[in-house]
């Protein structure tokens, strides 16, 4: 892929080179790491059965997210994804907040990935018999390398993601086949399952980490300005992505729950790697080690891509200093945003503990989903069907939006159980940031220019 200095009419823009497979890789690539680490904290919060219920309830939540998102994004196709949607449908302050959710969710997820990768290298170093091994150099290297890859160009970045993701997904399939799910030779669910240790309250509590099975799938629409035919590719990539994840999540649960006592699984850092260890098979161990490394890399890679697109879009609209709205003339990437977010990710990966980082990521995502459910209702009201061309129309409106809103409310309560302080701290942050935006920052924003879609005037305005 040659990246030339294309200057049409003294303007440079992002490069439109990606296909549906890249969209799938971006969506699934970010999320698949959730099966390799993190989801199992749901087992700790409510037990095995609760984790399975959480897996499917969260699956329902994300199916709603994917359907709603596909409809809106097939229409509002711009870098920044949900941010650009909010700007057109709800208003500038909402857009500013959505932009921050995206940057937060992805930068924290990127930090979580780097921490996991560093931990894994450290574990392997210790297993190999070295004394005094550190994880920090590998945490830093992960972030630096992926930032550099992103800096160099989007096509190479997401092609790498496609390969990494595909291998990590196949690794889960192979593990599932290798434990012979039809026999009791390795798996023993009867001996391992233990009912609901916390009762039904535990089921709700486990929904908190149940989101982790899928968190980030909505990132597909960040690539909207770089996809060749967004109206077709984005819904296709997103929907196949959510199907892939539902399958992978259920398989992961089935394998792990039949192999490990729930008390162990509930606090494991690398559950699928542990599952492979319990099969006594060296090839499987190597495969799942590679799978874990690849999935963390793919995820962090996609996160840098998405967070920088959101930051870039906000700079371009003057929501943030305009300096961030620059495109690299040769690489055609939002290079300043990429560089700026590197130290932010480093600070969190270096100093903060994993479950806190994950919780902040989940909370940002959750705020985003709450917005989406309200957003789609307004979208249908301001531009009813038939008024503008939609690439995809989701069925049963407004049922998915209401289900999504209900599930979000339950999940807030789940986060509250155990992590109430972070929830409040996060909301205080967003309130302060919103007031700052409304009373200070918004003066630098051009009013009419924010509305860039070729749509008619919204109904009721």
């Amino acid at each position, binding site marked *: 892929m040659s990246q030339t200095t294309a200057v049409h009419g003294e303007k440079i823009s992002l490069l439109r080179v990606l296909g549906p497979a890249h969209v799938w890789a971006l969506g699934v690539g970010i999320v698949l790491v959730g099966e390799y680490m993190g989801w199992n904290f749901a087992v700790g919060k409510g037990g095995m059965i609760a984790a399975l219920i959480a897996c499917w309830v969260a699956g329902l939540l994300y199916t709603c997210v994917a359907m709603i998102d596909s409809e809106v994004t097939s229409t509002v196709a711009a870098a920044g994804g949900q941010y650009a949607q909010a700007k057109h449908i*709800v*208003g*500038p*302050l*909402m*857009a500013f*907040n959505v932009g921050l959710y995206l940057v*937060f969710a992805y930068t924290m997820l990127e930090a979580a990935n780097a921490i996991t990768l560093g931990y894994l290298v450290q574990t392997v170093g210790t297993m190999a018999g070295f004394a005094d091994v550190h994880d920090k150099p590998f945490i830093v290297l992960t972030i630096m390398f992926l930032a550099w890859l992103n800096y160099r160009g989007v096509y190479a970045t997401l092609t790498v993601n496609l390969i990494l993701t595909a291998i990590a997904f196949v690794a889960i399939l192979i593990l599932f086949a290798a434990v012979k799910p039809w026999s009791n030779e390795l798996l*023993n669910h009867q*001996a*391992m399952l233990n009912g609901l*240790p916390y009762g039904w*309250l535990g089921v709700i509590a486990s929904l908190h980490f149940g989101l982790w099975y899928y968190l980030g799938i909505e990132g597909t629409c960040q690539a909207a300005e770089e996809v060749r035919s967004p109206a077709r590719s984005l819904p296709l990539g997103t929907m196949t992505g959510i199907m892939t994840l539902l399958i992978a999540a259920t398989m992961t649960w089935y394998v792990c729950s039949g192999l*490990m*006592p729930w*008390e*162990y699984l509930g*606090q494991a850092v690398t559950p699928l790697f*542990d599952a492979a*260890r*319990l099969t006594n098979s060296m090839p499987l161990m190597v495969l799942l080690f590679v799978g874990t490394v690849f999935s963390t890399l793919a995820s962090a890679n996609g996160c840098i891509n998405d967070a920088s697109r959101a930051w870039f879009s906000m700079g371009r609209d*003057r929501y*943030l*200093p*305009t*300096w961030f709205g620059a495109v690299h003339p040769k690489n055609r990437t939002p290079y300043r945003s990429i560089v*700026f977010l590197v130290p*932010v990710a480093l600070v969190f990966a270096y*100093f*903060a*503990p994993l*479950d*806190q980082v994950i919780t902040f990521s989940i909370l940002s995502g959750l705020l985003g989903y709450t917005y989406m459910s*309200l957003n789609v209702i307004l979208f249908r009201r301001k531009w009813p069907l038939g008024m503008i061309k939609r690439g995809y129309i989701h069925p049963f409106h407004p049922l998915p939006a209401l289900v999504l809103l209900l599930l979000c409310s339950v999940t*807030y*309560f789940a986060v*509250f*159980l*155990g*992590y*109430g*302080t*972070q*929830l*409040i*701290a996060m909301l205080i*942050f*967003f*309130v302060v940031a*919103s007031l700052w935006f*409304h009373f200070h920052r918004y*003066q*630098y924003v051009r*009013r*009419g220019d*924010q*509305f860039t879609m070729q749509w008619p*005037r*919204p109904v009721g*305005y």
Partner: protein
Amino acid sequence: MANSHYEPPKQSAFGQLIDSLFLLVLVIAALFAPLYLKLAGGGKIDIAVADKSTWAGLGQSAVQQAQWEKLGFTPETAASIITSRFDYSFNPTEVVITAVVIIGYFALLFAFSRTEYREVIEERFGRK
């Protein structure tokens, strides 16, 4: 476009820098404040078991015991993991406060966005 067109002031490089730094500090404060104030994380309690030094005493069956051992645990090292439970007792007032904060936050967002959005639409499509 005859109607009121808003021309924003040009922001100086210094102003841009201050704005970026403000956001950066705010982000880091939001994340690290709960950690430093030691308010982060759920409360955990230990449940009582018959005997912490044997697998049977910890309530583990023979099959479970085999898996623990394969993972490299002894009853002593596994005991703290097996007996630890989350403490889900909570105060209803706290739930109500949290709910009010969340709903208030979204109400604020939608209210401010609405006024700003009207301006955007007026400038883009002209006054009605």
